[in-house]
């Protein structure tokens, strides 16, 4: 009975002299590990989104949270006229990034996605385009 108590106190006291693991968020920020899957971003090349609206990401998405509509530009090329992700449905599996044949989408280190209204979780193409 007494021995386990002493062992427990020993662990407690030892922790009093160790560096705390708790982060004082938001003043302290966590170190994001490589490969972390946060908010999506659409990559840009030559001043326009790389996405060619091939529909592979909405096809592969297990949560069916990506909506793509293709359009035809002045050069008759295909581009994403609409690209939306419903972040409330997204499960951050990263399949969209895996599936993308043209490296048009990536996942950033951003994890602070809380918001106040349902509409704010719909990330349109403008919101997703990488900011330079």
């Amino acid at each position, binding site marked *: 009975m007494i021995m386990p108590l002493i062992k427990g106190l020993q662990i407690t006291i030892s922790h009093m002299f160790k560096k705390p693991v708790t982060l004082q968020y938001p003043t302290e920020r966590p170190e994001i590990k490589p490969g972390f899957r946060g908010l999506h971003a659409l990559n840009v090349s030559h001043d326009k989104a790389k996405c*060619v*609206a*091939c*529909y*592979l990401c*909405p*096809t592969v998405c297990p949560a069916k949270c990506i909506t793509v509509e*293709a*359009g*035809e530009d002045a050069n*008759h*090329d*295909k581009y994403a006229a609409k690209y939306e992700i419903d972040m409330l449905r997204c499960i951050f599996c990263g399949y969209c990034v895996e599936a993308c*044949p*043209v490296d048009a989408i990536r996942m950033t280190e951003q994890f602070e996605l809380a918001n106040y209204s349902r509409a704010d979780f719909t990330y349109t193409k403008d919101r997703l385009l990488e900011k330079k």
Partner: protein
Amino acid sequence: MVNLTINGKQVAVEKDATIYDAAKACGIKIPILCHDKKLHPFGGCRMCLVEVEQMKGRLIPACTTPVTEGMIVQTTTDEIVKARKLVLELLLLKHPIDCPVCDAAGDCDLQNLTYEYKVNMNRFVDEKFNHEIDYENPLIERDMNRCIHCGKCARICDEIVSYGAYTFINRGIEAKMGTEFDGPLNCEFCGSCVSVCPVGALNSRPFKFKARWWALQKTKSVCSYCGTGCQLTLGSKDGKVLTTIYDENQGFHNGQLCTRGRFGYQFVNSDKRLTTPLVRKNGKLQEATWEEALAEVTSRLSAGKSDPASVAALATPRLTNEELFLLEKVFRGTIGTDNIDHSAGFAHEALTKGAVASFGVAASPSEIADIQKSNLLLVVKSDAYETHPVIGFEINLGVKRKGVAIRIVSDKKGKLTRLPGAKTTVHTPGSEVALFNALCKSVIDQGLVAEGVAGLDALKAAVADATAEKAGVTAEEIAAVAKDYATAEKALIILPIGLGYPGHNAALASAAANLAILTGKIGKEGSGLLIMGEKNNSQGAVDMGIYPKGTGLAASAIIDGCANGNVKTLFVAGENPVVSYPNRKKVEKALENVEFMVVADLFLTETAALADVVLPACSFAEKNGTFTSLGRRVQNVRKAIPAVGLAKTDFEILNALSQALGGARYNNQGEVFTEIAATVPAYKGLSQAGLKDEGAVYPVAVAAKLVPVQAKTAAPAAGKLAMVTGSALYHCGTMSRFGEGPMYVCPDAYAELNVADASALKIAEGDQVTVTSATGAVQVAAKVGKRVPQGVVFSPYHFGEGSVNTITDGAEVTYVTVAKK
């Protein structure tokens, strides 16, 4: 039968089969890129290489090698796989890897085989093609950089469509699929080439970038344009019909479609669709609820019960059999009026009166399958191709592949006249009956009458004064056609009918039937008379009794009744009399005059704009039901998308009215079909589930008898041109105007003149001309060509603007003057 062994499996096939066919018959898949079951073997892609024991040492193409007795075939040895991989590598050498932006991805034979054979690298290096992409035409985009030279587009265009828009041009590494002078594509735009292209070299522009093939919901249904009854697979997504999908195993036509079926589906999701009921208040149509609109209609129809003769209904033959049956039940049964018609007064008399008089049934004695089984086709009007293009493809196949002879009697030349061995007898407009009487007389004079024909004396007397001159042709021509027809073992007469052909009436059907009966060309395979109803369910409308049976008013009389006040309440289901009936001014005046008019339609048509209540109806893609095609084939129509807006199907509308008026109420469309199968004799024993995908042809008991008919020949008006109406290839009725595809190619009304007439009147192609008749005048664009003979003008009737019916009055021929605007 020939016996052979494929991969150890014993198989017996016909002696004209190829190894590929034999493998397919026993369920062994041989990869191939240049094969379509409708086309002749080509052997161009070398993917179907197989090994034959008896021919050891080399690999041979399965698709062009005929089977021989005792053959032992291997389809997948290491050597074959290696060879196929090499073929794919060589194809991918020039083929751009732009699958992410290529519309064919997911439905691309090359892509699928590349995956299957794990071709993930290429041992060869070469430059890609750099051909200019043809964006010129609105329906078919040609990216020849992706082409794999399988030749399917050229072959289908030549063998089946008989147009020949494509061919291989240049040689060696420079070879490519080219068009006339390598210019932009200018053809019938039937899209057959797009449908068979194994890669993304040919794309449908209306569907370009709209969706991925795998994301489409595929629904097998029946086309809602002409009476051919082509089956199509609708590709829909998010409640919208986005495309039609090719399936080489669908229907009698093996997936072949015309420009309307392939590119005219956009009317389903048109922005112009009615989405809410409209009720006229203070002289204006205003949005209303269904309850309000139906209450208004119910109260008017209830009041009509006490005076049934004042109530009339016009229905379009585009509705399903169930809807038409219900319409007949509501109006003839519950309300008690016989004033029901579906333009039969103008267009379908050939079935409702002509066929009934000559054969004892209101249907064609022949089927579509008879076309290719015949020895000789006698086509009335070259326009048969324009009104029923897929029947035109059947005729092409019969003539080019089966050696069927073809004779055309027409008031103008057309595509069919260019078929090999085709002989066209161009007669004066409106003299079809005179021509058939002359043919009958010639058959009698030449002693070619079949044995045991009853009623011959009466016919002899009736055609005694029939001469070739009355039809404006020479006696030699008539004698030759009559002899060819009578001496052919099997001969089939093809007669298109519809709103564009006022002359194709009961008399003409009987006159044509007389010729068939006289020569014994009736009651056997490959012979008889094929009366081709204009709309998708023209035959069904006749079967369901949508025409006056007793003393009721036919369509033209209903219009007159509206004008003189005898008809007070008119229910119009989908019909557009203002544009499609003769004498537009008279129709407009009549419909403005009628006390109360209800129109149930997809669009606010010219007729709906005059209505007191407009009900938004559903298109064929939004409902289940059945259509009956011109060959008496009953087929399932299936719902592909939910109703647009607040639209309801005509079945729902009529069901609600039936219940409100104290009639029967059905729980679903299937119950109505069950009742049809129980009460309509021809449909006896049919079940909707039993129709499956291929449908069922109902039998007819033909009691053929000669019905002498007198020819009425209109006296030609001096100094005037004879105007005949009809269909344009790209349009059908007035509905195709709401499909983007047809409107890209043929957006405006036109009058087609002969070169000589045009130069005499100083009219050039594209000029605006005023066409004036005794009824009125209309302004249209001029089209100049050699198709119509001198002294004849042709104009299609589909258009609201420049409506040719402004100047017609139901006569076979309208005499007009044409002047440059």
